[in-house]
C-alpha cells in the first residue's frame, strides 16, 4: 500500500509508510467500530511513540525548572531544553540558537514579531503587505496593530489556480515596511516562492515575515536559502506536542527588538526603577518555558530527520498527486479540488467541494467511516470570501498516510452521497 517510490526521493530513499504508521499509537484506534483514517494533519499531526516516550521520560526523571537550578535534575532539564533548541536550529539551518525563540504556538510567534517589531518600527501611514492566502494568525495581529498605529494593509491577490499573483508585487511593496506571507496555504496547499518574495521585500526595503506553519513540517527548511527575516511555526503540526511554537529571526533584528512579555527568565537585572533584558533568545521567553514540550519537539525533529525531509516532501507530492487522480477519476464533475493543479506546487492539503454537499455534512458522514477531515473556513475567512466559498472540506496528508487512506476517503465520500441522496 506504500506510495510507489520515485528515483527523485534522494539519498534518504522513500518512506516506509507501514512502518511509520506503526510508530503512531493514535492511528490504531477505532472510531464507530472502524479503524481511523486520519486526514487532518494540517490542523494538527499525530505523535509518534518516540515523542510520547520523551515526554514521559522527562516528567519521570528530570522534571525541574530550568536555567537557575544548581542541582542535577535541574541542570539536566536545562541541558535537554537547550539541546532541543539546538535541534530546532539545525533542522531549519539557523546560524545560532540565539535566533531560536520558543513560544507556545505559531500564533504567539507571529504576534511576538508583529507586535514587537511592529510597535518599535511602524508609524502612522506606514504600509504592510499581506496576501489573500493568509491564515488569521497572520492577519489579525496586523489588523490590531493597524488600528493602533494607523497602518495601511495591502494585499497580494491570487491567480485563478490559487497561486499568488505577483504581477504588481513591486508596486504593492513600494514604500512598504514589511511583507508578511505564508510559505504554504493551509487551505489551497499552494507552496509560495518564499525566496523570490523575500528578495522582493528586501529590494523594496521591507522586512519579510514568513508563516511557515505548514512548511516546516513538510518540506526541507533552510532559513538561509529562504532569505526571509523571520519565520514562525508550531510544534504540534510536526509530530511534536501541543503548547510549543518557534520564532526564528535574524539575530540583529531580534537584538534590536524590545522584549514582548515581561517576567522571569527574560531579564538580566531588575531594580525597583527598571530592568535590563536578558541575552537572546531568552529575552523573548518570559516565565517558565514549555519545558517538556520543547524537549518533545526535539524528539519529533529527531523522528522527522530519521525519515529525511526530502523523502517526506516527495512522499506528499506523490500521495497528493495520487489522491487528486483517484478522486477525479472516480467522481469526475462531482468533485472540485481547489488550488494548484500540479502536485509539485502544493503541500499535502486537498480542499474540495463534493456533490453540493455541505462540508460539515461531508465531514460528519465521513466520521462514521472513521475518516477525519476538516470542514469550515480553516481560519482563513478572507481567503474563503475571495474564493467565493463559505466553507470547504479538507483532507490533509502526512508521513503516515498512504493510498489505503485515499481509498478510505473515496469510499466514505461515496456513502456520504448515498446517505443524502440529493
Amino acid at each position, binding site marked *: 500500500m506504500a506510495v510507489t517510490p520515485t528515483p527523485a526521493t534522494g539519498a534518504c530513499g522513500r518512506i516506509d509508510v507501514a512502518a511509520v504508521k506503526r510508530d503512531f499509537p493514535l492511528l490504531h484506534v477505532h472510531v464507530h467500530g472502524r479503524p481511523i483514517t486520519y486526514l487532518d494533519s494540517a490542523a494538527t499531526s499525530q505523535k509518534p511513540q518516540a515523542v510520547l516516550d520523551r515526554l514521559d521520560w522527562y516528567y519521570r526523571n528530570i522534571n525541574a525548572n530550568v536555567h537557575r537550578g544548581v542541582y542535577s535534575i535541574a541542570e539536566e532539564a536545562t541541558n535537554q531544553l537547550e539541546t532541543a533548541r539546538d535541534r530546532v536550529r539545525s533542522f531549519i539551518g539557523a546560524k545560532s540558537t540565539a535566533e531560536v525563540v520558543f513560544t507556545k504556538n505559531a500564533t504567539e510567534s507571529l504576534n511576538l514579531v508583529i507586535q514587537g517589531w511592529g510597535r518599535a518600527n511602524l508609524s502612522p501611514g506606514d504600509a504592510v503587505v499581506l496576501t489573500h492566502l493568509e491564515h488569521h494568525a497572520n492577519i489579525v495581529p496586523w489588523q490590531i496593530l493597524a488600528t493602533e498605529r494607523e497602518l495601511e494593509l495591502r494585499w497580494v491577490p491570487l491567480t485563478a489556480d490559487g497561486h499568488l499573483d505577483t504581477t504588481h508585487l513591486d508596486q504593492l511593496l513600494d514604500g512598504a515596511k514589511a511583507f508578511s506571507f505564508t510559505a504554504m496555504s493551509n487551505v489551497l496547499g499552494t507552496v509560495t516562492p518564499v525566496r523570490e518574495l523575500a528578495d522582493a521585500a528586501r529590494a523594496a526595503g521591507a522586512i519579510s515575515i514568513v508563516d511557515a506553519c505548514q512548511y516546516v513540517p513538510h518540506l526541507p527548511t533552510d532559513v538561509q536559502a529562504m532569505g526571509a527575516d523571520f519565520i514562525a511555526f508550531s510544534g504540534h503540526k510536526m509530530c511534536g506536542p501541543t503548547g510549543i511554537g518557534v520564532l526564528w529571526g535574524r539575530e540583529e533584528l531580534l537584538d534590536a527588538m524590545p522584549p514582548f512579555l515581561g517576567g522571569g527568565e527574560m531579564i538580566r537585572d531588575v531594580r525597583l526603577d527598571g530592568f535590563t533584558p536578558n541575552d537572546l533568545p531568552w529575552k523573548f521567553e518570559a516565565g517558565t518555558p514549555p519545558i517538556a514540550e520543547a524537549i518533545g519537539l526535539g524528539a519529533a525533529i529527531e523522528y522527522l530527520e530519521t525519515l529525511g525531509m526530502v523523502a517526506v516532501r516527495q512522499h506528499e507530492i506523490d500521495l497528493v498527486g495520487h489522491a487528486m487522480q483517484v478522486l477525479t477519476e472516480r467522481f469526475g464533475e462531482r468533485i472540485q479540488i481547489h488550488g494548484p493543479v500540479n502536485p509539485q506546487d502544493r503541500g499535502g492539503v486537498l480542499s474540495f467541494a463534493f456533490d453540493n454537499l*455541505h462540508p*460539515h455534512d461531508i465531514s460528519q458522514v465521513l466520521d*462514521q467511516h472513521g475518516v477525519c477531515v476538516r470542514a469550515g*473556513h480553516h481560519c482563513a475567512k478572507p481567503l474563503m470570501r475571495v474564493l467565493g466559498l463559505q*466553507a470547504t472540506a479538507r483532507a490533509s496528508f502526512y508521513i503516515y498516510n498512504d493510498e489505503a487512506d485515499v481509498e478510505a476517503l473515496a469510499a466514505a465520500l461515496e456513502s456520504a452521497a448515498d*446517505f*443524502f*441522496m440529493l
Partner: protein
Amino acid sequence: MPGLEDLYREIILDHYRNPRNRGELPVPPAHKVEGFNPLCGDEIVIYLEVSDDNVVNDIKIAGQGCSISQSSASMMSSAVKGKTVDEVRELIRAFKSMMSIHESSLEGEGGEGEDGAVNGSGVKLGDLEALRGVVKFPVRIKCATLAWNTLTQALDEIG
C-alpha cells in the same frame, strides 16, 4: 458514541431536500434579517411579515448552509407561520432550551438550563423534536440554532 441516525433523522433530511417556505418577500411590508454562523460560514436570511395584531402572516427563508442549519430553518418556518409573536417567542425558548442541555453541561452550568426545559414549558415542539439528537454533536448545535437566533433578532427589531 452517537451515530448518524441520531443526527440526521428522516424528517430532517426531508426538510433539507425539500425546504419549506424557501424564497423572499417584498420588504416592506416584510422585515429582512441576516444571520451568520462564523464557525462553518452558514448564512441565513429571514423575511418575516407580522400583522398588526401580532400574527406571523408569512415567512420566507433564503441563504445557504449545511443540512442541519437549513432543515432547522425550514422546520422553524413551518412551525411559526400563523402563530402570534408571543407564541413564537415561547417556541423559540422551548427550542433553545432543548438545544442548550448539552451545551450548558459542557460549560459546567448544568443546573441553569433546566428551568425552561422542554417539558417544563408546556410548549409542543412537534417535528422539531427531531433536532434533539443534535445536542449529542456539540459542534452542530450552532447550526441548529442559527435560524432561531436570527428569528429572535427579527422579532426584536420589529419591536
